[in-house]
């Protein structure tokens, strides 16, 4: 800072003060100088008035109908952007994540149908790591399905005594479940489990609908969501799969305790 107790503040000092970019010690000295110096105080006030004037000016707006023009320019480009998106989905980082989920879905739902029943050429360490990871991911998926099931049950059993139903809690939870569900569904698709992918696809559509709904629903809207859940037998399917995951977890636990007994 170029100020001293006797010299006036420079315009640049005032800019730094105005934007809060001055070191604290300099700021205290500057303010104390402003208190004592009428000329600098006037100069700072002029700066503040100009900046307030700038603030009062609205930004230049787009011409009428700009949204339509913007969309007309964008739409043809989205196809190639989507292909780029798919390419990025095949990046090593994404594939590593997908591989982790693959172990889960493969282990939980295909019971060796898509993954080899007997590990091929794997050392004991790698086998243990995979088993531990599968257990953790099984728990994760089980919880996801349980949480989804709870949202569906609450909506199916909700009543509208006052003509509207507050679904803000279910909506917030559905929002959180959509992203995880998407990953599980993509993995099911990539492992070729059509039934699993179809169930997760139905679940995701309902979750997205719920997440997109207003926080209060009329009885008619609620009935529409309920019909959608019931027409796909979604709740039943989620329960069945959730139960299979639990069974798989139990089998894993039993296998682990048998191994530890044998090994002890």
């Amino acid at each position, binding site marked *: 800072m170029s100020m001293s107790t006797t010299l006036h503040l420079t*315009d*640049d000092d005032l*800019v730094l003060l105005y*934007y809060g*970019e001055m070191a604290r010690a300099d700021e205290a000295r500057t303010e104390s100088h402003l208190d004592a110096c009428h000329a600098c105080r006037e100069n700072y006030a*002029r*700066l503040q*008035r*100009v*900046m307030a*004037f*700038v603030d*009062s*000016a*609205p*930004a*230049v*707006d*787009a011409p009428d109908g*700009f*949204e339509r023009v*913007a*969309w007309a*320019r*964008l*739409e043809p*480009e*989205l196809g190639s*952007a*989507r292909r*780029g*998106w798919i390419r*990025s*989905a095949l990046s090593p980082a994404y594939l590593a994540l997908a591989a982790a989920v693959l172990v889960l879905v493969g282990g939980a739902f295909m019971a060796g149908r898509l993954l080899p029943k007997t590990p091929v050429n794997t050392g004991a360490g790698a086998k243990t790591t995979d088993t531990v990871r599968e257990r953790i991911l099984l728990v994760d998926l089980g919880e996801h399905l349980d949480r989804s099931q709870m949202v569906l049950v609450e909506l199916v059993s909700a009543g509208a005594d006052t003509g509207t139903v507050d679904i803000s809690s279910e909506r917030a939870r559905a*929002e*959180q479940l*959509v*992203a995880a569900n*998407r990953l599980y569904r993509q993995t099911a698709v990539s492992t070729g489990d059509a039934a699993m992918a179809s169930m997760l696809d139905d679940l995701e559509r309902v979750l*997205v609908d719920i*997440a*997109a*709904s*207003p926080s209060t629903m009329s009885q008619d809207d609620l009935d529409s969501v309920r019909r959608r859940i019931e027409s796909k037998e979604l709740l039943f399917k989620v329960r069945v799969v959730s139960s299979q995951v639990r069974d798989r977890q139990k089998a894993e636990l039993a296998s682990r305790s048998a191994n530890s007994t044998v090994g002890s």
Partner: protein
Amino acid sequence: MPHTDAAAVALARHGDSEAFKALVERHSRAVYRLAHRMTGNPQDAEDVVQETFLKAYRQLGRFESRANFGTWLHRIAVNCSIDVIRGRKHQETAHDAADLDMLDGDADDRVDPSPERLMLSTEVQEQVTRAMDGLTHMERAAFVLRHFEGQSIDEISRGLGLKANAAKHSIFRAVRKMRLALEPFVESER
């Protein structure tokens, strides 16, 4: 049309182009305003809008559903505007120095503070637009990022690829020019 941005994003992620269209319709005007402020040029602003939404579309998978879509898009738009401005950086280096030397001498030529001239353009927006048009691209970008976007000088220097001192002096020059252009008008209105 989905009621909320979060719902539209969720659908657009699955390739629902109507949902993405809804996002474009809701946010393209705000992106244009920001881009125009940053670039000072309608054509560049339109290009920034296009690039911003394309990037957003490609990165939808990375968008966290709990975040605010408008805020996320705004950040992308700032970066796209910076890309446009950085592309011109080397073109105006000489212009920056010459422009600053001439600052005091030709201020009256750029904005005539006489009442007759001012009566022709009394709209605040027009005054500010004219003043900002007197800034170089770098000064304009640094000023907009500091003044309207609230970025610190350090953030601005990183974003614009300048040394911190250069970013600071771009802001100083911009404010000096804005004051020279607007102060006569503002003070005469008091």
